[in-house]
């Protein structure tokens, strides 16, 4: 285990109706590193990600047991307001979902709902976060345009800027490049590598190449179970499990 664990997941079981989606998942996610959750489709990686900020609450018939500690809070059993906890985690989803408002307000939204409303305060902040997401130069003259007028790649970067604006310390990313063209994907990947000095990044992907490129720590899942986890180098060069070896060789996908 390298670095301090930022997120400690212990014995998490998740049932979706009668379906057992996560089975005894236990993992430590290191601070200020890129952790990649890897695995074939339908193995529960996205579900695990959404369990971390309790987006699973939004769906019918979900039962979760176990604990996920972030700092001193057990996310799954906390008495704190869940919206407060979610604010510490930015989310990037498979395809960008900008809010139905203009570009400026998309980034300002998170700041506004946490009570900072003056234009004077918002303007430089919005600029700052758009710069962080490498989007400022492209949109600085059209901040009043609807977010939906941006290309998909730009929208995903806008969602990144929006996610960063609430000043999280964790970024959760659910296959954030799967809907993007290669250039936009690369931009996001490079951004992640830059951002890992300040943020703990957890990314779900099914792309082995992508995991090789950016992962510091890998969690490999198959059919709802964690098969193997460890530092990326070890994981790719010297896998311990048979299943991992097969997966890395591309024998199943």
């Amino acid at each position, binding site marked *: 285990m390298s670095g301090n664990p930022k997120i400690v997941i212990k014995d998490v079981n998740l049932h979706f109706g009668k379906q057992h989606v996560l089975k005894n998942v236990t993992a430590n996610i290191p601070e200020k590193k890129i952790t990649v959750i890897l695995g074939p489709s339908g193995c529960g990686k996205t579900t695990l990600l959404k369990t971390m900020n309790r987006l699973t609450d*939004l769906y019918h018939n979900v039962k979760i047991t176990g604990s996920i500690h972030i700092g001193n809070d057990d996310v799954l059993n906390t008495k704190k307001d869940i919206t407060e906890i979610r604010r510490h*985690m930015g989310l990037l989803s498979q395809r960008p*979902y900008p809010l*139905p408002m203009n570009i400026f307000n998309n980034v300002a939204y998170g700041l506004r709902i946490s009570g900072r409303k003056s234009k004077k305060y918002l303007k430089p902040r919005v600029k700052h976060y758009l710069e962080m997401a490498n989007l400022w130069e492209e949109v600085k003259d059209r901040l009043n345009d*609807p977010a939906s007028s941006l290309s998909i790649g730009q929208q995903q970067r806008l969602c990144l800027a929006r996610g960063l604006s609430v000043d999280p310390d964790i970024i959760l990313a659910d296959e954030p490049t799967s809907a993007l063209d290669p250039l936009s994907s690369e931009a996001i990947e490079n951004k992640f590598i830059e951002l890992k000095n300040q943020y703990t990044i957890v990314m779900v992907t099914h792309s082995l190449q992508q995991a090789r490129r950016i992962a510091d720590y890998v969690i490999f899942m198959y059919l709802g179970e964690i098969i193997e986890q460890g530092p990326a180098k070890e994981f790719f060069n010297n896998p311990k499990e048979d299943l991992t070896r097969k997966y890395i060789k591309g024998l199943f996908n």
Partner: protein
Amino acid sequence: MKRSKLRNAEELFFRGVMIISTSVIGFALFLILWSIIKRGLPALSWEMLTQTPKGGFYFGKEGGIANAIVGSLYLASGATLLAMIIGIPVSLYMNVNLHKRKKLVNSIRFLLDVMWGIPSIVYGAFGFTFMIYFGMQSSLLAGIITVTLFIIPIMIRSIDEVLVSVPNGLMEASYSLGSTRSETSYKVFFRQCISGVTTAVLLSFGRAIGDAASVLFTTGYTDHMPTSLSQPTATLPLAIFFQMSSPIAEVKERAYASALILTLIILFISIVSRIISSKYQKNKIKL
């Protein structure tokens, strides 16, 4: 070879069916408009729009239906506004707060659809019973309440129809920024469904201003301009009805003119709400 011939014939058949049905609808619409314009336009005058019925109005003498125009506008606007105030929060609540409780929400939808299907005369009768119970006389207020009741299902279900199609991803995005449920409702979902609200307002207003049965007992009729919520008020559908049942040709013509006015009001509302919605719709996330 034979197969492709059959498919061509099938194609031709369905295209024919579509063309015929479209023409039937178009023709019916044209016929309706034509008949009210042809018979109504000559009878339409400035006097009709601006004056209340004078003594001999129902025998073809001077006067107009300004009282009914104003009354109908009051009634429909009041009811639409009330239905909006109730309908928007309810439909947002159904889709945001009750998002997990699909069964409950579906039962509510079923209930609303049943309410949508109830004939307006039943609402009128219901409102009438209520009025008698509370000792009210027929009045603008009673009409507004009754009409509100019967357009609420229309309002809620039309907004709901749009809210259902808001993708889960947008909801997750909103929550993951730390929004509460009401922020998700009113700052995100509401913006996304403005087009639905416009359709809902249009449908509701159209039903409210055009319905005769629900206002027959509840709003009553008078030849005076409406000045108070507690007084009986004239409405356009009833104005059309009373004039149409007259044996005098001139009065009958005026009924068509009234129908033309009603149609123009609805046309005007349609255009205005389309303009408003397209202004706010530009921020909608397309999928």
